[in-house]
């Protein structure tokens, strides 16, 4: 078992003919992902890696039964692509795109509130269920299939570091999700924690947060009230200066709020096993998840 994506996922790539879209389509296929279609308006009928490309999501879904989409469209077109996917019944929409204006994302999120689709991201590395399906830009080879640990993170490469350390300890992963580094995102820590808690194969979770906003604090409360599985936590940004945006649009301590210290304290209070030194996270997890 896993969450959100697995071997039955039929993936559609929006923005498949762009440089990034093309490269990662190839990588996902190489990993074993079942990519059934691409969409680039005006480029219908070409083929990328032998994948048929369509002009519209509607046509792609009709012809191929795609149920998941990975969005590479550039920031000015990305929200359009997300809504097009949602309106055509795509269940999981993974938006890789970085740099979408936050007001656009707020409108999309408000709209998606009434839709059946789940949006993951934007500004995220995507989702991978190791050994089954990779919907994103993460390097597949660092993952270890079979579980029992789920990983959820706001970051990209930091997640790879964490996953790699788990794998080196012999700890496999059920599903790893990057929820994205933007201030407004589709899927929250809580959504993922809840899904992991319900997934019978996931025995524990590693949650990687960072400065900015209050998503970790909300997650801490959720964990305290709703979770039986063990959660290991790590927060990046203890040394981040206040008022500065640390690369991710959402990574900013503003008005003294959203600090790493606050988040670590809240998560500890929520019963999360906090790892303070990234260098030893793998060993830390091995210890916590031993039983």
């Amino acid at each position: 078992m896993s969450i959100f994506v697995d071997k039955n996922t039929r993936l559609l790539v929006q923005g498949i003919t762009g440089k990034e879209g093309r490269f990662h389509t190839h990588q996902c296929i190489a990993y074993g992902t079942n990519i059934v279609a691409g969409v680039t308006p005006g480029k219908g009928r070409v083929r990328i890696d032998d994948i048929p490309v369509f002009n519209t999501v509607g046509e792609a879904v009709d012809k191929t039964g795609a149920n998941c989409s990975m969005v590479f469209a550039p920031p000015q077109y990305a929200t359009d692509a997300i809504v097009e996917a949602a309106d055509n019944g795509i269940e999981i929409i993974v938006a890789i795109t970085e740099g979408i204006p936050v007001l656009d994302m707020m409108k999309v999120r408000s709209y998606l509130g009434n839709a059946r689709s789940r949006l993951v991201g934007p500004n995220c590395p995507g989702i991978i269920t190791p050994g089954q399906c990779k919907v994103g830009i993460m390097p597949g080879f660092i993952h270890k299939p079979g579980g029992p640990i789920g990983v959820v993170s706001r970051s990209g490469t930091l997640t790879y570091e964490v996953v790699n350390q788990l794998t080196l300890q012999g700890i496999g992963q059920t599903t790893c999700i990057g929820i994205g580094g933007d201030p407004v995102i589709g899927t929250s820590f809580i959504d993922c924690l809840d899904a992991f808690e319900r997934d019978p194969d996931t025995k524990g979770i590693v949650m990687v947060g960072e400065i900015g906003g209050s998503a970790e604090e909300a997650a801490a409360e959720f964990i305290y009230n709703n979770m039986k599985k063990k959660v290991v936590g790590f927060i990046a940004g203890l040394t981040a200066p206040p008022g500065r945006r640390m690369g991710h649009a959402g990574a900013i301590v503003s008005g003294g709020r959203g600090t790493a210290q606050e988040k670590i304290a809240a998560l500890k209070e929520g019963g999360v096993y906090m790892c303070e030194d990234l260098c030893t996270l793998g060993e830390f997890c091995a210890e916590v998840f031993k039983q």
Partner: protein
Amino acid sequence: MRLHEYQAKELFKKYNISVPDGGIAFDPDEARATARRIGRFPVVIKAQIHAGGRGKGGGIKLAGSTDEVYSLTHRIIGTKIVTSQTGREGKLVRKVLVEEKLEIDKELYLGIIIDRKTSKILIMASEAGGIDIEDAAAADPDKIIRVFIDPNLGIQPFHCREIAFDLKLTSSVWKQFVGMLQSLYRLFVDYDCSLAEINPLVVTSKESIVALDAKIDIDDNSMFRHRNILEYRDIEEEDPLEVEASRFNLNYIKMNGNVGNMVNGAGLAMATMDIIKLAGAAPANFLDVGGGTTIEMVEKGFGIILSDKDVKLVFINIFGGILRCDVLAKGVVQAAEKIDVNIPVIVRMDGTNIEEGRRILFESSFKPIYTENLKDAAQKISEFAGAGAMLGGERHKV
């Protein structure tokens, strides 16, 4: 992107939000000319820097005559102002805003922000103008009026009325306020603001509503549709190395320590700074070279770190995902061939194309301290920090 007060007030005027009569001045002569045009004394002289808390820091002065305008402006321009938001070094003043002084009946607070938690636009208002809204919110959350706006629906007249009545505005004033708030909301949305704040918003003795101060931050991600606003960017307010880095699309932030570092990905870059701190040293910067980076960008990034005089040790930490280790290695080697690297450099790489990256580093004449293990790298930083002399500059102790 942050706007200066005088720039924000220019936008206010476009949206018919009243501001005091005034003008920007880059030298005492200009300031005096503006004061003369205003024609009523005293006038207010306000230092234009990208930081709040100017009043307490000596950046806002009253002048009773044209001569005093001249002498005060002469004194303020060219000096550094230290406020709670500038850090110890303070900020150099290069221009002042000269404005009429109004007779004030009532000071209010009004701000519009993005609320991440609800994914809505949040309007905040308070009868206590001129306050630090964050302090006030912490001290007494109930004193602050909060109204959440659905971004797809936008502000409705009743939202404005609610706020106006909660602010206990008189009948002659509240209609003005409703119009003003609708304008401010329109400006907020039109310009993709992440913050639009008027603190204080005042009711004058003549019962008009005027924005005494103005603070606007614009979402950097929206710049592709606000080309015109780019002229408001004030490069002099930014760190020169940060400006240089931004020209190459590198995400660089200057800090106070002396361990320079270059990392791919913002989360790992923050975590790397934390590792440096845990190892007993202090990061000199944040530098995310990003995923889609090129050999040239890596070379430039490394060059920027090395050009920082405070840097005594460099830590390059790469977990190759999209950025392949060979690209990183080539960029680092290219930079090292052009620049005389006379400080120790620790390179930790792992991930995509590690073998090729390792080969490139080993075959070059540049000999970094190399490891593929993060714990190892931290240990090495700690050894340098422990050795003291190298990182011992007192002024950089964190």
